């Protein structure tokens, strides 16, 4: 792609509650890519995501986004962030939620309707978020992150609990956004979603097992699917060196 990477992580170390969660992780997220952050739960995905957004206290290393330290002021209107639990107001309607976040971001009010339609909630725009299903709430949270067309979108398990058709639609949306130059870092613990990413970061026990395109990872491990590739990589790690 030739561009500078959108995210550069260098020897990032994070402790939470006395435990080592990320162990000197170094990796990059290519600009304009859909990078999947894959790994079992407890592998440190959310912590890595929080570090990129700049809300995680870190013990060592650096995280740079668009050439600036993660969490620094100029980045706050350039990054969209979706937490694992939908972080929207349950006692407001979909539209009221998004109008408020749009006002905080200073984006055009017309943006509200377009992000509602992007996540397929136009017919629910007037409904209270607290009355929506879990998957619909997740989409409201995602819509809030899309406001103002951020250059980097950081999404923590945005497709959990969604039906397959919706998941497919959202991944199409992610790839469409990437086509327009947005960089996406998307975490997931579902391996079949990994195939939809242009780049993968495989995380396990706070360390990066592999960072490459899905095809390259399959080739390297001589496997046909990413699930087996992941297992092969774990096995290769655990073989004691002779």
């Amino acid at each position, binding site marked *: 792609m030739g561009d500078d990477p959108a995210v550069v992580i260098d020897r990032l170390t994070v402790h*939470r*509650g006395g435990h080592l969660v990320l162990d000197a992780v170094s990796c990059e997220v290519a600009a304009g890519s859909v990078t999947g952050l894959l790994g079992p739960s407890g592998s440190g995905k959310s912590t890595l995501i929080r570090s990129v*957004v*700049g*809300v*995680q*206290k870190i013990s060592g290393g650096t995280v740079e986004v668009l050439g600036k330290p993660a*969490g620094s*002021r100029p980045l*706050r*209107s350039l*990054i969209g*962030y979706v*937490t694992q*639990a*939908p*972080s*929207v*107001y*349950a*006692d*407001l309607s979909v539209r*009221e939620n998004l109008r*408020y*976040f749009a*006002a*905080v*971001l*200073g984006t055009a009010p017309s943006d509200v309707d377009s992000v509602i339609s992007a996540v397929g909630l136009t017919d629910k725009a007037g409904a*209270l978020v607290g009355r929506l299903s879990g998957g619909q709430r997740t989409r409201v949270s995602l819509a*809030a992150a899309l406001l103002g067309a951020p250059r980097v979108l950081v999404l923590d398990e945005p497709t959990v609990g969604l039906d397959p058709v919706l998941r497919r639609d959202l991944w199409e949306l992610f790839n469409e956004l990437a086509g327009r130059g947005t960089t996406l870092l998307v975490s997931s613990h579902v391996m079949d979603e990994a195939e939809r990413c242009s780049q993968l970061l495989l995380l396990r026990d706070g360390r990066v097992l592999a960072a490459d395109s899905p095809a390259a990872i399959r080739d390297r491990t001589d496997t046909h699917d990413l699930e087996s590739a992941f297992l092969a990589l774990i096995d290769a790690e655990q073989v004691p060196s002779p």
Partner: protein
Amino acid sequence: MNARITLATAGRVLTQLRHDHRTIALLLIVPCLLLALLSWVFDGEPAVFDRIGPLLLAIFPLVVMFIVTSVAMLRERTSGTLERLLTMPMNKLDLLLGYAVAFGVLAVVQAGLAGAVSLWLLGLDIVGSAGWLLVTALLSALLGTALGLLASAFAQTEFQAVQFMPAFVLPQLLLCGLFVPREAMQSVLSAVSNVLPLSYAVDAMAEVAASTGLTAAAGRDFLVLGAFIVGALVLGAATLRRRTA
């Protein structure tokens, strides 16, 4: 700071309340009913009602706004919306001032209603003007909001947040001069009462109810209240962390 974000936040908080009819009804009607009950209790002694009634108009806003704000802010912290807002171009003070504006508006409506009921239906007889009564109630509400925002930092659950009300507010209620004049207390208690914010809200209310226009003593109480409000907001802002463990 950013006026657009502050006002948007105030509007959002009021919209959340607007969806909650029962809370609105409780906020507005309970003070009126309590004042009516009080006037009935002191049916034979209107002078007592004339002394205590205005003081309650200073105490209700602080107590009610303290609880409502601490729970609302705790929800903001636990639901992840606070984390989202702090990754956006929002200043911590924008958020806190937004809450202060929203609950200030609510307090004016609440005190206006309770004051109107007291003055015109319950026969509350005061020397001072209704306008200064409202100003005092507003300052008391802002104080309750600022203290509630601060207190929410020390609660992990809504149960804890609600328990802060008796812990923070009841001692102030006992020492504010409602039951025993502050000058008549033991020297230790009167010294403690001198550093508690509610004492100044109650003093100010007693002063504006008993005199025409704004006296120097009431002005001084307003300044002290203002200092407590600003102090609590600044401390509250310090408890909002962009980076957490």
